[in-house]
C-alpha cells in the first residue's frame, strides 16, 4: 500500500523534501512507519510530532492505502 509522508519546517529541511510516497506492506502500523523514518532521519527523533490523516495521532493505528502521515517539530505559531 502507498502512504504519503509529509515533512514541515525544520524537518522538511532535514529531509531535503516536502513529501515522499512510501510503499509499505499491508498490516503496517503507524509506529512501524515512524520508526523507519527515524532510522532514516535520526535527527528528528525525540521531538517529532506525528499527524495521521491531518489529526494528531492517538494510539498506534493500522495504516491503509492512501493515508497521509506528517512529521514535524514542536509548533511555534501565534
Amino acid at each position, binding site marked *: 500500500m502507498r502512504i504519503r509522508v509529509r515533512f*514541515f519546517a525544520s524537518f522538511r529541511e532535514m529531509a531535503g523534501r516536502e513529501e515522499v510516497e512510501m510503499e509499505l506492506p499491508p498490516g503496517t502500523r503507524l509506529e512501524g512507519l515512524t520508526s523507519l523514518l527515524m532510522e532514516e532521519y535520526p535527527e528528528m527523533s525525540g521531538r517529532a510530532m506525528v499527524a495521521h490523516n491531518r489529526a494528531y495521532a492517538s494510539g498506534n493505528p493500522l495504516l491503509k492505502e492512501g493515508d497521509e502521515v506528517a512529521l514535524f517539530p514542536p509548533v*511555534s*505559531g501565534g
Partner: protein
Amino acid sequence: MEKVRVMEEDFSIQKVVDSVRDPRSGGIVTFLGTVRGEDIRGRIDAMEVESYREMALEQLWDLRSRALDEYDLVDMAIVHRVGRLSPGENIVMIAAAGVHRENAFAAARFVIDEIKRLVPIWKKELFSDQEHWVEEEK
C-alpha cells in the same frame, strides 16, 4: 467573512472585529499578534511563517468550537498569516465576542495559548547573517 482563515495577505482588524459583532454580545476581546523585530540573537530582518495548512485549518476550527462551547461565546474569529512577514506586521488575530467580558477575555487567552501548543504553524526568524527556527528553543 470566514470565521477561520490561514492566509498570506494582511487582514483588516476592523473587518475581523465586525465579523463577530452581534447585538447579543456586550463585549469583543481581541488579541493581535505582531512580528517582533528582535530576539536574543539581535535584530530580525523578516519572519517566515510556514503551515501544514489543511491540518492547521482543522485545528483552528476545532479550537473555535471548543471556545464557543466552553466559554459560552456569541461568536469568534481566528486569522493566522503565513509567508514572509516584516517586523511590526500582523501575524495572528483572535476576536472573541462574549455576552460578558470575563468569558471573552478567557476565551481569547485560551485560543492563543492552544495555537502555540497545537496548531501546525512554524516561525523562522531571518537575521542578516543567520536564520533560526523558533521551535528549537522549546
